[in-house]
């Protein structure tokens, strides 16, 4: 990845609040036009990292840049090209959605008025708030506020969209809509979003970064992360005596682990391999060559993100952010 293709770059970025180290030495690289999933359990430091990128908080160590602008000295220049949706967005309750978008656009553009109004209308349509556009925000539901949040974040045609848990408070339909909007926007902008909904990340992200307790534990394109070393999995279903076959498979140099569970007279195999090509060529033949074993199903199955996430993060990190 060339440096000039990077939208966000941080080096050892850290933030400590009194005695609490919220973020430890974060090295991020976010490429242009990617949908970058910023994953981590609550309290992992995702929101802190986002606030540092936007200049809403100051780092206590390290450095960072967005579009080549320094996050400490040039945060206004950064925010000129960014759209941001906070985790728990708050707006002026007496304003309507239309007023809020007009107010937001007023920080980016000074005219012409008709084009500004056109853009507001277009954005209201995009997020499905047309029938609520002229009502005060104080009467909005959580989902409507989130839609408005997405609207105000992208109304200025941002080159980078930073979304902090954009789908967290939405129902399944709302989540679906948000992901769809993100997919639609990806050809125009880079999307950096934090979430703990792994299913969403797997659906739309191309690059993933996993943060845990303020530390970066993994950063890679999602396919690479899912297929990471030793992480390709083959699943088989067999009938008959598998003792000999199991020993044979476990002895292959390209096999990492073999797990077998029995149910209803069938054996469910999960074979983790380090060389998927060798496994594709040999695994099925080796099992079938064992006397008394009948294979009823066979296929490659990649680990899903949840498995990767749980492996990297562990199960004991559900503190409150």
């Amino acid at each position: 990845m060339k440096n000039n293709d990077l939208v966000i770059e941080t080096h050892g970025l850290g933030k400590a609040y009194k005695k609490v180290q919220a973020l430890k030495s974060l090295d991020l690289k976010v490429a242009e036009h990617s949908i970058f999933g910023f994953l981590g359990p609550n309290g992992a430091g995702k929101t802190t990292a986002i606030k540092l990128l936007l200049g809403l908080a100051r780092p206590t160590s390290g450095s960072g840049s967005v579009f080549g602008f320094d996050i400490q000295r040039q945060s206004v220049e950064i925010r000129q090209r960014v759209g941001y949706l906070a985790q728990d967005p708050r707006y002026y309750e007496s304003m309507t959605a239309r007023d809020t978008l007009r107010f937001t656009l007023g920080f980016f553009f000074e005219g012409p008025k008709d084009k500004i109004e056109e853009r507001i209308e277009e954005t209201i349509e995009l997020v499905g708030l047309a029938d609520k556009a002229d009502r005060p925000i104080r009467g909005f539901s959580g989902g409507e506020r989130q839609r408005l949040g997405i609207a105000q974040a992208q109304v200025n045609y941002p080159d980078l969209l930073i979304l902090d848990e954009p789908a967290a408070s939405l129902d399944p339909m709302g989540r679906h809509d948000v992901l769809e909007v993100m997919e639609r926007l990806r050809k125009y902008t880079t999307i950096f979003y934090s979430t703990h909904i792994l299913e969403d990340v797997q659906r739309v992200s191309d690059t993933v970064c996993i943060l845990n307790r303020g530390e970066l534990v993994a950063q890679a394109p999602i396919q690479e992360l899912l297929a990471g070393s030793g992480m390709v999995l083959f699943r088989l279903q067999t009938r008959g005596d598998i003792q000999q076959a199991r020993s044979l498979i476990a002895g292959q140099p390209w096999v990492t682990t073999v797990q077998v569970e029995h149910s209803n007279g069938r054996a469910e195999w999960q074979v983790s391999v380090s060389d998927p090509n060798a496994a594709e060529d040999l695994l099925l033949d080796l099992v079938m060559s064992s006397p008394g074993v009948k294979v009823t199903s066979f296929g490659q199955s990649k680990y899903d993100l949840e498995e990767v996430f749980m492996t990297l993060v562990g199960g004991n990190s559900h503190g409150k952010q």
Partner: protein
Amino acid sequence: MASNSELQLIRNRGRLQGFENLLRKENRLWWRTSRWWVQTLIWLAIVNGILFMVIGIAPKMEDPPGQASNTQSAQASGGGGDSQQSLAILGLTVFLKMAGIAIAIGVVVLAQDTLIGEKQSGTAAWVLSKPISRSAFILSKVISGAFGILMTMAVVQGGFAYILVFLITGKAFPVVPFAGAIGMLFLSLLFWLTLAVMLSTLSNMRGLAIGVPLFLILGFTLFVEIAPWIADYMPWSLTSAVSSSQPALAVSLVLGQPIPTLMPLIATVIGCILFTMVAIWRFQKEEF
């Protein structure tokens, strides 16, 4: 992407980036909501209401029924002019003192809420995620607040008091000095506004942002008794008499009397500037 649209990008305005838009929003909160008329009515009722009671009702109540009023007697004996003049001066003194204390308390309550309220509700963090400078954020609040206070708490109240005094006493103060007196009232209110804004940037405790100015506003007689020199460095003497020998500067101005010292005026201006600068400096360091 933005540069590809037909919209004209905002030019870089450095430390005032976002100021116009923020000021528009703040002014809107003052003038397109109920705030302006609520504030106008509250202070009309309190300050001008008290003024009316002092110069319109109290003198009549002092005269026993069946007897000619003091005012009427004074007029009959040819001394009515002096009596009415005294009543007008009393009205001016009461109005400025009441406005300088009661409205100042209102200003402090409003000012602390404008910033602490935004910090606590999260709207400040949202606005600051847009391309604005933090100095523009503070200045927009101070300037729109100052203008709102000038109009609803100084000009309207002063104008109403002027008319009230004229209708009751038949005496009209010279307009330009009276406008100067209203300017002094405004300046003292601005002092409390900027002090409350500054305190709101130093802490999120409403008690502190309200308590300190209130202590200074209400305790001024005590402070002046302990250390009379302190009156030269505070806005108290602009609208209130700090001793029997020193009337309020604003009253002296209207009556054409020599102004004993300009120090409180200068100190108040310096205070306003200093508090605003400290507020901006502190707000730059605030984290959200």
